[in-house]
């Protein structure tokens, strides 16, 4: 099971990571990480800078291969079937990943076409997503003319245009004003209600507490704490500081 290409159980997890490690030279960016995210779950990855969140994200999204261990998305092995995995996932990077010379509509239909979505379906879906984030009126304007908040909203729906099962958000609210931030939370909750598995990284503990069903705290490439943020006994911020500053090897055991 652990090394099979595709998990065969009836209800596979949205994401499963089993003893995944990634080394860059002599440094282990991610070391022996295992976790499971259920389908439809909203999972938060927390950790200070350099904790290994981006590396774990990159492995899950097929951008880099693990040095050892296995990762599955919707039961599909990331290492052996990266193309299939790419069709299952949607990425919402930290910076707006859109072509600035193209309009929102052109960006959306471009990525829909690349993902093999048919013309009519692509147009219908682009229309729905634009309505969802309130960009319908400006859909034919070049992205370069958008405000920061508009680019953020477009960034999100670009990751959803091919209707992925699993969506990765990489620090989605960094740099946003409080109103835009709350608007984004609404969109993420809306997505969760549609049954999508969502994994997000964030530096904001309040964001994780408000949004996530479960969180994992990463420090120096290892998971040091994991659980439901509302059932961990202490505030998430307290646990975060404890885990990331004390080097306590028992932290995970205490908090899970």
């Amino acid at each position, binding site marked *: 099971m652990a090394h099979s290409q595709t998990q065969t159980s009836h209800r596979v997890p949205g994401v499963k990571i089993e003893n995944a490690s990634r080394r860059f030279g002599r440094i282990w960016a991610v070391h022996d990480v295992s976790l499971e995210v259920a389908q439809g779950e909203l999972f938060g990855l927390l950790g200070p800078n350099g904790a290994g969140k981006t590396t774990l994200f990159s492995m899950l999204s*097929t*951008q880099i291969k693990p040095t050892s261990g296995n990762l599955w998305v919707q039961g599909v092995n990331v290492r052996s079937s990266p193309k299939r995995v*790419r069709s299952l*996932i949607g*990425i919402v990077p930290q910076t707006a990943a859109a*072509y600035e010379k193209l309009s929102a509509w*052109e960006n959306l239909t471009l990525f829909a076409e*690349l993902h093999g979505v048919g013309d009519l379906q692509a147009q219908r879906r682009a229309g729905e997503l634009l309505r969802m984030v309130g960009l319908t009126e400006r859909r034919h304007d070049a992205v370069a003319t958008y405000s920061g908040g508009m680019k953020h909203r477009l960034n999100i729906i670009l990751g959803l245009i091919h209707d992925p099962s699993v969506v990765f958000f990489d620090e989605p609210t960094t740099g946003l004003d409080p109103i835009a931030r709350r608007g984004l939370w609404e969109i993420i909750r809306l997505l969760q209600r549609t049954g999508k598995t969502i994994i997000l990284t964030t530096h904001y503990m309040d964001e994780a507490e408000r949004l996530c069903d479960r969180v994992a705290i990463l420090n120096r490439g290892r998971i040091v704490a994991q659980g439901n943020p509302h059932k961990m006994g202490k505030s998430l911020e307290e646990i975060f500081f404890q885990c990331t500053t004390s080097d306590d090897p028992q932290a995970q055991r205490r908090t899970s």
Partner: protein
Amino acid sequence: MTLWTLFKKETRIILRSRMLLGVLLIYPLVLVGIIGFAFSEPQRHVPIALINEDVDANGQPRVELIPNPIQGRPSERTFSSALIIANLTEIADLHYTTLEEGRHLLLTGEVEAVVRFPANFARDVVNYGSSSQIQIITDQSDIVRARIMEISIRGAIQSLQDYIITQKVDLVIQTIDESLGFVSDPSNALYPGFPGVRQRCEEIRTSKANLSQSQRDDLAACVEFMDTIQGTLRNSRGLVQSVAQPIQVRVDQERSGSLFVRDLIVPAALALGIFWTGSLATSSLVVYERESPAYQRLRLSPAGVLAIYGSKILLTVLIILGQSLLILAIAIVTWHTRVDNPALTLAVVLLSTAAAIGLGLFLASLSRDVTGTVLLSVLITFPMLFLGGVFYPVSFMPPAARFVAGLFPLTHSVAALRGSMLRGFGFEAALPWLTALAAFGFVLGTLGIILGRRLELRR
């Protein structure tokens, strides 16, 4: 399908990047326009300062009769500095001035050269025991300009040099003929001349009955001797001419038609446009994509590397083909530029495009941002421009420079386009250049893609 989708995206982006579009498309066209205009006609009015000290009391060029060298009589043939000056007016605007003023004008750049005819110039030229000297002063601080002016002025003088030699030779021949009586001299009708004396000797030998056999033999020997001398002197024109002008130059122009310098430049400008646009467009598109945050999303889409690079290559090929056709159309319609072998020209354009794209991919693999790519592109383009045979023949360069020139694909492209457009080369003759261009395209392109992927993975 993926390729077409990405091609549409590239087209939209490039059409909306006005600056890039201008640099890629408009600049080469402007370049060709400027070059075509600059070289459209030979310069006919180069300013030259002229000092003529060989003038008469009225300030007019002194006219001298070319004298008969043996009898010392002046002939009807004349010579004057005015003949050379007339030749010079074909290539220059003449500014009559003094030597001092002429030197000043030369140094201030108001004239390109100074030409001075000394006093008694024409007299010394026509006399048989003397020669004369024309002084040409050029500004050696611009060696190319100085050399071109020297060659042009020498050319104008040389034709008169030939003229004066021919006149003198004719006069020598005429004098010999008249002296020996080969032609009748109206001023001395009774002079028997050489043929008359010979005829008289022959008559005595055959008609006088009282001559001894020995006398007859002597007369026969005299007649034979005179026949020999007559024959030799009759060939004197050729003999004298061979002494005066032992070398005569005949210039035959192979496949010249009515070529102007711009005809030579058009293939070079075409090649330059291909390499400018090809390398800059490919490298800019690749690096622009790599710099764009959207690239991460693109790489995570099902689009493969081949489709991503292929869409940029396809767009660049279409841009270059359109641009090349436009340049050729302008050159053919406006300047009647020749395209002797259209099929080979098209093949050279395509292979040059492949080499230019290969170069662009290679440049893109060396730089992380568009600014760096443009700088690299300029760094490569300028040496190519100067060493690639665009303006100065590669064959005239020293061996080391020729070797370096061979490392530039532009050199092969320029040579191949000139061969196909102006010299009517066939595919067989152009094969070395075609092979070189294909090799450049393949090697640089492959290296560019491999190194580019490594660069991406390191980011």
